[in-house]
């Protein structure tokens, strides 16, 4: 287990390092950053001063190593436009996005797991077909359009929920639904397949044969094993959601990392964009690592690295 864990950790670190290299090169592919900060019509002296101030006059490798060592210490440089350290801005906004992502994955699991179990207990029944139809329909709906439709009905026509902002928990209901529904089909299909497989196994037959109640068999014996892959899928999807929340946060004007990313893209604030991509990538890598280790811990067969 230790060998497996250390190997996986090494790969995760290497991935994070590669992402940092890619995001760093984004700045330099895009042309002279000093020109971009100075704006149009700036004099040569101003541009030179900016180049000195941000250290763009040093060799690129030195700049990268400097940025990387800063990032390891939680220092992502200064934002071009916000006039404050990027790290401060990011860590002020990150909790909002994590809360939104957690609410979204919570919504998806609460909806998808019961539907998946129901579909697996009675395969090819009406409930199964309904769940599959829901999955197909859900996957075809554009997220942003679904979000706008929610705003139109729940927010404007029925006046049930506030439309924009991130002050109270009610602000998070619609965004969480809009962000979470897209994952529902995947979770549901996996739950259905897992429960179907487990229900056909020998120990379930034994449990039934010794006269346990069907509900006990289903929840205590079957679901407990079928849910393991769902947990790791949820971890991975949570990582995707943090990255995908940019559209939802922009629509609902939620003051999270996604909205910050959108603002930075609009202002061409490269250090902030760079740092957001890196932070999200590190979170994703950590989540998948945790999911892998959890699976390996629960199922020794997976420990073959």
């Amino acid at each position: 287990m230790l060998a497996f864990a250390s190997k996986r950790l090494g790969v995760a670190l290497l991935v994070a390092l590669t992402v940092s290299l890619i995001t760093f090169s984004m700045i330099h592919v895009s042309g002279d950053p000093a020109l971009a900060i100075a704006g149009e019509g700036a004099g040569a002296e101003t541009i030179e001063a900016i180049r000195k101030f941000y250290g763009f006059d040093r060799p690129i490798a030195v700049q990268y190593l400097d940025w990387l060592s800063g990032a390891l210490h939680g220092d992502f440089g200064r934002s071009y436009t916000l006039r404050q350290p990027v790290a401060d801005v990011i860590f002020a906004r990150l909790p909002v996005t994590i809360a939104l992502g957690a609410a979204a994955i919570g919504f998806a699991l609460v909806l998808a797991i019961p539907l998946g179990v129901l579909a697996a207990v009675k395969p090819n029944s009406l409930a199964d077909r309904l769940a599959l139809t829901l999955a197909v329909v859900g996957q075809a709906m554009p997220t942003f359009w679904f979000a706008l439709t929610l705003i139109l009905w729940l927010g404007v026509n029925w006046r049930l929920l506030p439309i924009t902002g991130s002050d109270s928990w009610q602000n998070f209901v619609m965004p969480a639904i809009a962000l979470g529904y897209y994952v529902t089909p995947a979770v549901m299909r996996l739950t259905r397949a897992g429960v179907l497989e487990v229900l056909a196994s020998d120990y379930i037959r034994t449990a039934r044969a010794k006269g346990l109640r069907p509900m006990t068999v289903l929840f205590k014996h079957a679901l407990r094993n079928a849910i393991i892959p769902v947990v790791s899928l949820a971890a991975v999807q949570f990582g995707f959601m943090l990255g995908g929340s940019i559209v939802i946060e922009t629509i609902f004007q939620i003051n999270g990392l996604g909205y910050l990313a959108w603002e930075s893209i609009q202002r061409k604030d490269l250090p902030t964009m760079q740092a957001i991509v890196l932070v999200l990538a590190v979170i994703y890598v950590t989540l998948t690592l945790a999911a892998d280790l959890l699976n390996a811990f629960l199922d020794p067969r997976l420990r073959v690295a």
Partner: protein
Amino acid sequence: MATVETATGAAARIGVEQVLAPSPAALLRRRVFRHWGLMIGGVILGLIVLMALLAPVLAPYDPYDQQLARKLIPPIWHASAKATWAHPLGTDHLGRDYLTRLIYGARISLLIGVSAMLISGVIGTAIGVLAGYFGGRVDMAVTFIITTRLSMPVVLVALAVVSIIGSSLAVVIWVLGLLIWDRFAVVMRSATQQVRSREYVTAAQAVGCSTPRILLTEIAPNVLNHLIVVATLEMAHAILLEAALSFLGLGVQPPTPSWGLMISEAKGLMFFDGWLISIPGIALFLLVLAINLLGDGLRDVTAPENRG
């Protein structure tokens, strides 16, 4: 009286059954036509493709023609005095015919969906098949590349790159194509791994076929059905991503009629004229639904043993 079957009679009966037994092609045809999802998806997609191809013939107006005097006419099912058969789906905030823009929008969605799918398909298939066939270090390297790609959020990276190099139709296609090859690579890798250990591949290796020949004549035909299914899914994925990028203003640029852009332009008016966002939204939904149904159906039909 008991009938005693003669040898020739038995032979004749088997012969007749063999003649009457449906050919594999007929079996496939039967599976295709009895699969509801596949048929519905195919018909809707066919209609949308036809609409895109025949856009200049079908569209009643020019998609760029602005008639400010006729702006924001509601569609005909609205109980409004302004609704007119001259503009069945109404007009937008610049007085452009909505039906015309919807018809031309199908071209953009399909063009981006197909092109981005082809680019990502070539990349993903190439590295996936190589990883699956050679295994070992090649596999490790490819798995690492896939993991790295997956850890970078697609929408965010696409938006950042487009904002840096400027947005146009070609940029959107290339950025999406270069980003969404991950599923192709993952699926092709595992499909190739399965095929690689079959006897016919070993046989081809034993008689000394070259590696490119084995990949083309032994591996490729046997992973093709997986490839087609992923291709449909990724085409739908690219269409949704283009719509999201255009919606955020960093995809296809106005005045091009793109469904995502139409929703974006109508965003400010949605509280008063909800149909402005529902019409292109439903069009997007139908197109993606049709492609997904087709993909799911093709998987069921080409690999019936994996159903469920």
